[in-house]
């Protein structure tokens, strides 16, 4: 039955090509609108998610030592005069103690006070002065664990962190500046003693050539090196550096890979910390320099919402491991990058502004709230776009219904003839329903194609992010089928209900 009805319907549609084409066009527009809207909606969602992820929302970095650089930390890397102004009134420049009268609070070390407040009132520090280096006031723990004592993290600490539930990846890092040389070419760059899990954490990494070093190479502290794309170009030009030798500390390292950024917008440049750099296993650095310390441990949380909890747990764990007394400050710094990234430009400024503008007291915002806000915003947008698309689809559907009703009237005699030669009412119903479905599905296929083009050109020309998923295509196509079925049903039933004699006599 199905094949014959398809055949019959197809031929019937073929009889009036222009009408068929125009009706399909209505459907095409509707489905293309749906496709484009879905692409835009999910594109926005993906863009936000990507930015959140790329911004390291789930990233926690533990640095050895405890020194805070105000310009990079308190308010997410932005020098914020207002923020200081807000803080100042809360800063007890002078405190009053009933028994002893006035005393200068900043002169005494009071571990119970929040560090942020003390920061501002350190006597060395003029609150209006901005420094691009840590001042004495910012190096809170100087007396106990300052810069000089920054060898506080070890691989054992990293192993302990690895055991915290919710931790996804842990990468141990040690960083130096170094001269690297290949033949006559030399380059002064950043040396990262990296961890095999680093590529998992740096989501924006890609390896145009070769690979990162392996677990085994790391364990055996072998002299392998991965070049940042800038270093690769400086040392080898356009040539293939894989398998070539690079000199570092009078040792020979073999190049196994080149790393670059997947993000074309932030193409690596000279001075880039990640790509104007070379990576060797941190174990190799330890072996060659006879060290055990780590400069930092980079952690990712499996769930973005758990960053705050994990950061807290990492701090507790490390304090316990380092046997830090209750009143003593940390000898390490835990940085979660969510807030920093927000203002740093990891996110589009308008998104960041929206987030900041919508949420009171950003510094108190937990990541869960942040994610929720973003999600709500993008859901609102998707809903808006979807309703527009639904209207477009509805119009297409009404077009189909209109043409089918017209067609039933026009072809009343045909229906009569078909009934006379043995078509059952059901056959007539199926024929018209299949015609409506064909209209909507063929129109739908064209619409999906058009949607691809529309979404593609939107991201090309307007720079709007779009994302087309299989589910989006299926949904667009499915809605076309549903529209065909829904709007084709009534005309088809009308056709099937016609009495054979009446339709044969119809003029």
């Amino acid at each position, binding site marked *: *039955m199905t*094949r*014959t*009805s398809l*055949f*019959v319907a197809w*031929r019937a549609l073929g*009889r*009036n090509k222009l009408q068929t084409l125009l009706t399909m066009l209505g459907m095409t527009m509707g489905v293309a609108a749906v496709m484009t809207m879905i692409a835009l909606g999910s594109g926005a969602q993906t863009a936000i998610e990507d930015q959140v992820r790329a911004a390291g929302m789930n990233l926690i970095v533990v640095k050895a030592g405890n020194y805070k650089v105000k310009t990079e930390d308190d308010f997410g890397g932005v020098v914020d005069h207002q923020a200081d102004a807000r803080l100042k009134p809360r800063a007890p420049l002078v405190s009053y103690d009933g028994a002893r009268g006035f005393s200068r609070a900043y002169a005494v070390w009071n571990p119970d006070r929040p560090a942020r407040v003390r920061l501002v009132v350190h006597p060395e520090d003029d609150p209006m002065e901005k420094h691009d280096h840590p001042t004495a006031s910012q190096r809170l723990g100087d007396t106990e664990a300052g810069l000089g004592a920054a060898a506080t993290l070890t691989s054992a600490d990293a192993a302990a962190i690895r055991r915290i539930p919710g931790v996804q990846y842990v990468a141990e890092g040690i960083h130096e500046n170094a001269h690297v040389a290949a033949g006559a070419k030399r380059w002064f760059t950043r040396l990262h003693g990296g961890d095999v899990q680093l590529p998992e954490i740096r989501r924006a990494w890609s390896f145009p050539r070769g690979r990162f070093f392996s677990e085994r190479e790391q364990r055996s502290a072998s002299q392998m090196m991965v070049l940042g794309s800038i270093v690769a170009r400086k040392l080898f030009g356009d040539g293939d550096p894989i398998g070539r030798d690079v000199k570092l500390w009078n040792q020979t390292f073999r190049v196994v890979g080149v790393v670059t950024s997947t993000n074309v917008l932030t193409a690596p440049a000279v001075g880039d910390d990640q790509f104007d750099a070379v990576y060797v296993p941190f174990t190799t650095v330890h072996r060659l320099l006879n060290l055990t310390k780590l400069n930092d441990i980079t952690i990712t949380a499996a769930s973005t919402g758990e960053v705050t909890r994990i950061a807290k747990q990492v701090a507790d764990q490390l304090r316990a491991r380092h046997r830090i007394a209750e009143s003593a400050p940390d000898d390490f710094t835990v940085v979660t990058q969510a807030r920093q990234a927000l203002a740093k430009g990891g996110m589009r400024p308008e998104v960041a502004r929206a987030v900041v503008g919508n949420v009171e007291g950003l510094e108190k915002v937990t990541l869960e709230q942040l994610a929720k806000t973003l999600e709500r915003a993008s859901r609102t947008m998707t809903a808006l776009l979807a309703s527009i698309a639904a209207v477009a689809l509805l119009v297409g559907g009404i077009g189909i219904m209109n043409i089918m009703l017209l067609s039933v009237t026009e072809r009343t*005699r*045909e229906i*009569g*003839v*078909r*009934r*006379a*030669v*043995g*078509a*059952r*009412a*059901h*056959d007539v119903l199926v024929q018209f329903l299949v015609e409506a479905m064909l209209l909507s599905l063929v129109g739908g296929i064209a619409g999906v194609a058009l949607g691809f083009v529309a979404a593609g050109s939107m991201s090309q020309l307007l720079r709007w992010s779009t994302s087309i998923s299989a589910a989006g295509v299926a949904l667009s196509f499915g809605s076309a089928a549903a529209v065909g079925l829904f709007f084709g049903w009534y005309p088809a039933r009308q056709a099937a209900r016609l009495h*054979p*004699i009446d339709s*044969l006599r119809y003029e």
Partner: protein
Amino acid sequence: MPIIVARDLTKTYYVGDVAVHALRGITLTIEAGEFVSVVGPSGSGKSTLMHILGCLDSPTSGHYLLNGRDVSHLSDDELSAIRNKEIGFVFQGFNLLVRTSALDNVELPLLYANRGRVPASERRRRALDALNAVGLADRATHHPNQLSGGQQQRVAIARALLNHPSILLADEPTGNLDSQTSIEVMDIFQRLKEERGITIVLITHEQQVAEYASRIIRFRDGRVVADQVDGARALAVGET
């Protein structure tokens, strides 16, 4: 063996509140292979009779036995199946599908035969055979508007014959044709009767056309008023 047995058929329509008694008790028997003309003025109920005989409609009362089977109160689907298998229709207005080739028009009944499972190649072959039988094999790809009235009616006859029906019902088949073409169509009917033994019921109000049949039934006001078997009937072939 009678192929059509009608017993006291009545049919009453309602046009608004007014009852129209189109048939007021028809009883007749038609043997297999007969060529019967039904004549009568318009409104005499002959078309209604044809609709009931053709299973397009059910009688209000009475019984209609087709090939010995009472079909007077079957369901719509069952009637459709009978129309498909047992009955071929030829209409006054040809009723061909527009913008559709003669071949596609002819194969129409096969689309609904055997639950639509007749393969396309067989449909094509049988449609061509049927077109060939009415002498239009060379017009297979022509659309109705490219064919003359006589040719269109021959295509319609080919369509009616496609499923090898036992009865051919023709409702004023020559009403839209000139006299010369009418004779050609009648010739085809007579040949079908002679060569294939098809039972033909021809409805007309033209006495001349009616006389090609071997039996003439006269209708008036929903009743049979005369039923004559005419041995000396006109021969279409002889006249041309």
